[in-house]
């Protein structure tokens, strides 16, 4: 299983609609960085509206992908984090403070624009 990555102008859009196992998450990380490289995208929005469980491993993969993309010069914003996911992560002790987030896809794009303009 693979997570589809769509290109829209200068951005990449991802909506995670499948149950992420460790392998799929790692593969996604690699695919996304490859796609950033191939397309020269400057920003990425990853929508988590359909994701019901984020455990410590998946959280680490998400946090890492932000840092990795940042190294390449692209900004990543996560959107649509469900209330249950947010509560569970904080109770787990995972704060993901370095990870930019926005309420939904629309806000995510706005946030990306702001972040990219600030550079």
């Amino acid at each position, binding site marked *: 299983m693979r997570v589809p990555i769509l290109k829209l102008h200068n951005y990449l859009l991802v909506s995670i609609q499948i149950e992420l196992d460790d392998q799929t998450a790692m593969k996604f990380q690699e695919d996304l960085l490859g796609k950033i490289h191939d397309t020269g995208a400057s920003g990425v929005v990853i929508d988590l509206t359909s994701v019901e469980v984020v455990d410590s491993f998946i959280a680490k993969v998400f946090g890492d992908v932000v840092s990795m993309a940042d190294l390449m010069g692209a900004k990543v914003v996560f959107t649509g984090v469900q209330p*249950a996911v947010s509560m569970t992560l904080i109770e787990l002790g995972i704060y993901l403070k370095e990870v930019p987030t926005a309420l939904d896809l629309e806000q995510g794009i706005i946030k990306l624009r702001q972040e990219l303009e600030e550079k």
Partner: protein
Amino acid sequence: MKGTLSSVVIKQEWDIVGARQAGRQVSQDLGFGSVDQARIATAISELARNIYLYTEEGEITFEEVRDIPKVGLKIIAQDQGPGIKDLSAVMRDGYSTSGGLGAGLPGVKRLMDHFDLESDENGTKVTAIKWAR
């Protein structure tokens, strides 16, 4: 009154997903709300990953527990692995021997209502209970 609802063998990486899906189903059947279902599924994921990372094979068993009028879900994660050498270290946030975030066991303890960890050279057993509200 209590009974075993189901159990999942953890041997391959994909079994982690299988275990948390089974746990989500069981918690839904017992009437847990969506946030508690996410807590339970996440806790199971952490326990299953520990079995996968540190042992050859283990098993996660789900039991229904009753303390009238409360209904709860008991999760037992058991393996015959090498055991945990430093029990107090693994309960510390940020401690990991595998490059992870070190959120696993202390996180599971916070997500659940009851948490018990036993470990010796013959294996490890984690028992955790969540009560439905």
